[in-house]
């Protein structure tokens, strides 16, 4: 799967929860959901649930624990999608 495309999809997912537009506009793999995008930690659950719904995958506890930045999210999505097929 194309990484750039997944980043765009991920941006659409996180957009409703971000509280720092500037960091969102220059989002890269290194962008941190909480420290950079200022996503409320309770809303990180919503990001995770939205990712599960969008890709029809299950993000287990172990994966969720790492889900603090864009890079981890991309890796988790790719891994879970490959396990599905």
């Amino acid at each position, binding site marked *: 799967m194309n990484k750039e495309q997944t980043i765009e999809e991920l941006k659409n997912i996180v957009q409703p929860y971000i509280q720092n537009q500037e960091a969102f506009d220059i989002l890269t793999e290194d962008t941190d959901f909480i420290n950079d995008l200022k996503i409320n930690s309770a809303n990180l659950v*919503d990001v995770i649930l939205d990712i599960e719904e969008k890709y029809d995958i299950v993000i287990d506890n172990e994966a969720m624990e790492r*889900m603090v930045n864009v890079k981890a999210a991309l890796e988790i999505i790719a891994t879970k999608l490959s396990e599905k097929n």
Partner: protein
Amino acid sequence: MIGNDIVDLALARKESNWKRKGFLDKIFTLKEQFLIANAINPEIMVWNLWTRKEAAYKIYNRETGIRGYIPLQLECFYENATLGTVSIKEKIYFTKGIIENNSIYTIAVTNKNNFDKIESIDSAVTLLKNNGIPFVIDSVSKKKKAVSITHHGRFWKGITLLD
């Protein structure tokens, strides 16, 4: 060490739908979900337990340097509406909460005696940061003092420990 966390209930109602399918499963253990299901006011219980986990996580993160989204590892033992503990691995933190003005505020400490040594700091104070962790310089002793800051909606709380 200390940690704190506040939830503005009015804002939480807008930002979060805790009744969303899967929401509680991702962040609360079965025991905690049982507490929520049996609470007179489940919404208050959700944010009460959540602020305990968040306040405890701030200490855990500072003690261990471990960063992660680990609400399920931080298990609440609920003594009553204001008191309890949060355990993670071999660590245990004590929590004390205040429910008022449509907000829920929790302070976590590593040692129960520290509840008597909590001092509020002013939001105008100059905050310095070391690896993202805030501290202030005491005006008298000139020593670094660890602080914990939380803000949500209409509320801002900052605390430090008296020597």
